[in-house]
Structure formats: C-alpha cells, structure tokens
C-alpha cells in the first residue's frame, strides 16, 4: 500500500504494509536512524517522534495512521541542531550512553511547544514515559528548564 505523508518538512511516499510500525519505515525504509528502537511496546519512549506536533511512540504507530499527516523526527527538529533543547543538552552534557536521548528531546520539545515555562511537575508528568537507564533524569530536567529560559533555583 502506498502512503503519503510529510516527513521533516518534505513530502514522502512509501510502499509498505499499512500495519508496519512507523519506526520500521523511518529506520529501515527511509534510513533515518536517529529514532531508536527500545522496547517495541511503547513502554520506554526511545522511539518518540511528533505526529502533527504530538509526541507518539513510533514503534506502535501503524503507518496507516500517518497518511496525509506530518511527522517530525529528531533529524527534523532543527536544520542544524540549534533547537533550544539540543543546545541545552550539549551545554549541560545531558547524555551518558545517549540511546534514549532522541526520545527524551522529542517529548520535551512537544512539552515546550505547548507549555513555554513548564514547572518541575509538568516536566516530570510529560517525561514520565521516557526511560533512561543511565539515570540522567536530573540533567534532563535541568536542560528542559534551561531551554525554557528558566533559571535553576
């Protein structure tokens, strides 16, 4: 089945089973490997991308759902890695192993798009489904606040 959608601002068309998870399309068919496979069950958040601006787990999103819609991955968050979150991530040295970080940033970006000055509780609730096995949660929270222009108390 042919499915058209917009990916990182560019119109794309893929020919695939409509039940194929979006993550498979991104990584295996389109070669965008920034989005990670973690659990395959929507439990870890490593595969988070934006679908019409909302954070979704691409490992469980069938591509029939994205037809005619807009998908943004970590590669499309900014043209040159200059999104405030990406800058804050670098400034604070957030990642350790890095595997979960694309998903963390995509969820955080969805949060900041809706809530420009999130509280700690906002950040914790929104990122509660993004697991980091290295335990970088405190740095993640600090970086989200830095990106939002909130001084750490």
């Amino acid at each position: 089945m042919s499915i058209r959608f917009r990916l990182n601002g560019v119109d794309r068309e893929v020919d695939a089973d409509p039940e194929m998870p979006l993550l498979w399309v991104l990584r295996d068919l389109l070669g965008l490997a920034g989005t990670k496979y973690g659990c395959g069950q929507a439990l870890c958040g490593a595969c988070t991308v934006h679908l019409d601006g909302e954070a979704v787990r691409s490992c469980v999103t069938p591509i029939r759902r994205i037809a005619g819609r807009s998908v943004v991955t970590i590669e499309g968050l900014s043209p040159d890695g200059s999104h405030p979150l990406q800058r804050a991530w670098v400034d604070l040295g957030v990642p350790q192993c890095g595997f979960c970080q694309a998903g963390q940033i995509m969820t955080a970006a969805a949060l900041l798009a809706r809530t420009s000055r999130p509280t700690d509780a906002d950040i914790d609730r929104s990122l509660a489904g993004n697991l980091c096995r290295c335990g970088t949660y405190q740095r993640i929270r600090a970086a989200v606040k830095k990106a939002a222009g909130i001084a750490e108390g």
Partner: protein
Amino acid sequence: MVPARRWLMAGMALVAACAGRSPEPARSSTAMTGSGPSELREPAAFAAIADPTERSRALFLEASRVILHPRCANCHPDGDSPHQGTQPQLHDPPVTRGPDDRGVVGMHCDGCHQDRNLELARVPGAPDWHLAPRTMAWVGKSPGAICEQLKDLKRNGGRTLAQIVEHNTHDELVGWGWNPGWEREPAPGTQERFGAIIAEWVRTGAQCPSQEARR
C-alpha cells in the same frame, strides 16, 4: 428480607427449578445460561421477579458485574491515573489524566494506544482511547452508588437514559471490554447482552439497588 437478597433468592429458585429440585414452573432454557463468572444472564432470566422495581434493581446488579470488571473499571478510576491488569495496578508507564481525560502533553493516551489492539506489542487499543471523567469514577463504589451516578445528568456527561443505552450497546471503546486482546480476561458476557440488560433496566424504571447490594 432486603430487596437484593429477595431477588437473589428468586434467581436461586430459577436455577433450582432448572435443576429439577423445585416445583417452580419451568422457565426458558436460556434462564440457565449466563450464570458463570464469565457469562452474563439475559434479561429474560429476570422475568421471574414479578415486581418491576425489584426486577430493575436486579438487572442493574447483573450489569454491575460488567461495570466493576477490571476491563471496565480500570479506566474509571477515582483518581488521576488508570489501572491495568486483572489484579488492578497503576498504569505503567505512569500516566495522568490531564485536562481532558486523554493524558498530558507528551503522554497522551493515543501516543501509545491505537484504534485497535496490537497483538505483537500487546498494547490494547480502541477508537478514542481515554479515561472516564472523575465524575464517572467507579472504583471503590457500590453498584447502588454507581447506578445513582449513572443517572445523574450532572455526573454522566449529560446523557439521557436512552443515550446511556445507546452508549453501552454500541460505543466501540465500551466494546473493547469484550475484545481486550492479548490474553486479557474479557468482561462477562457480550456487549450485545450488556446493552440488552441496560435497556431492560431502563425499561423497568432504571431503579437502583440499595447501597449495600452486591452481585
């Protein structure tokens, strides 16, 4: 005898009659069906209860076997987080209902739950997956309290009794309770029979069981 006990006795008499241990007149053979934990009795099984008010209460108690089943009650929490499992546990990952009962930004229900079950990933799904509003909480409440709440326009989303029948009979998210996917225990009976029980409950006056009554 309290009303609930009285209808229960009537039901037991029905079973005894079908087992040939009572002089009660024979009932429809279908009156025997639906007595197991996974089944739901059909409305005709309650015809032996002559008093319409008592029959209506008995019908709601039967419906409460579905309403309070974890497949249904898990998403009618009296709090901000749904439960999951047959021995209900807090939803994992930790999610909160958010302003419209569909999660918070970054953790919306449909960020993971699709419009149908995903058997390989084991993620349950149905159209418009979301939590019931706080006013429709069922967890921790008696069938009688749920019944009163269900009829209260201020707490039931402004639904008329006819709309409640329609919702329970045809809503696809309600219907997921009988099609939960991946080894999950379905709610008792079928959605069609549940809808028929609710319809008969309404037809008999939508009476509520006492606060103490349990099924």
